[in-house]
């Protein structure tokens, strides 16, 4: 048995939390941040296009 095997059997809840739930919640947080960033960038582009159209 490796050191990781011994550690995970001695600390199963820490292993589950850090390995599964913390990773899953981090993935959700990254996805939400990416969706918000995409909206911000898209809105900026649309505003730029609108302003450019107004100046013509």
């Amino acid at each position, binding site marked *: 048995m490796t050191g990781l095997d011994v550690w995970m059997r001695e600390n*199963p*809840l820490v292993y589950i939390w850090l390995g599964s*739930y913390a990773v899953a919640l981090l*993935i959700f947080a990254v996805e939400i941040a990416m969706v918000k960033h995409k*909206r911000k960038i*898209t809105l900026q*582009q649309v505003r730029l296009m*609108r302003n450019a*159209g107004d100046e013509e």
Partner: protein
Amino acid sequence: MAINWFKYAAPTTFYGLAGKLIPWFAVPAVILFATGLYIGFFVAPTDAQQGEFYRIMFIHVPASILSMFLYLVMAGYAALGLVFNTRLSAMMATAVAPTGALFAFISLWTGALWGKPMWGAWWLWDARLTSELILLFLYLGFIALHASIDDPRRADRAAALLAIVGSVNVPIIYFSVKWWNTLHQGSTIKFSGTTMHVAMQQALFTMLAACWLYAIAVVLARVRSIILERERNTAWIAELAEVKQ
């Protein structure tokens, strides 16, 4: 009062509706996540055979179900877009793909973390695991194919074909534990009943509902950006309050 559902099949009307719906899905998702985690870790008892490690299933099972179901939703929207040439259907398919891919990744990741203490290996070329990995590749293929074609309508059609053909993988994943001799366990919850402890069921179904609500909220938020991007040259987009700011 009759609701004209076709009204919301147009990006013009769906954009506003999606914006109003997001908090109604996002807030309950957060509450259900917190409730599900509380029941899963503080109320549900330790399993007699798997010890504490079984608690991974409260995220693994919902993620696996969502990864398969979202693929069918994506393929359904893609097919609608292909057959009826509806703009919003193709946009919805594009919006669903990244969330489905993330759920497929979470399913594989948490499965590996459960497999190490239970099977003694992070990964096995087992039928269920391999078909789920193929599902992740199908999602990535859909996203990559769509991104590689500049014309959005042509990209929609090409990616839709991949999504429709790839949907054959979903029943293969589901029935893999019945069709082949696999290490992966079969369904614990069946229509005929279950032997699972009631607190375990509560945690599992609460987390499943939370993942569903989260997926709907994030897909609605993403499709709003896609609508903005694709319809940016139209007059109604220029008249939006958030664009005028």
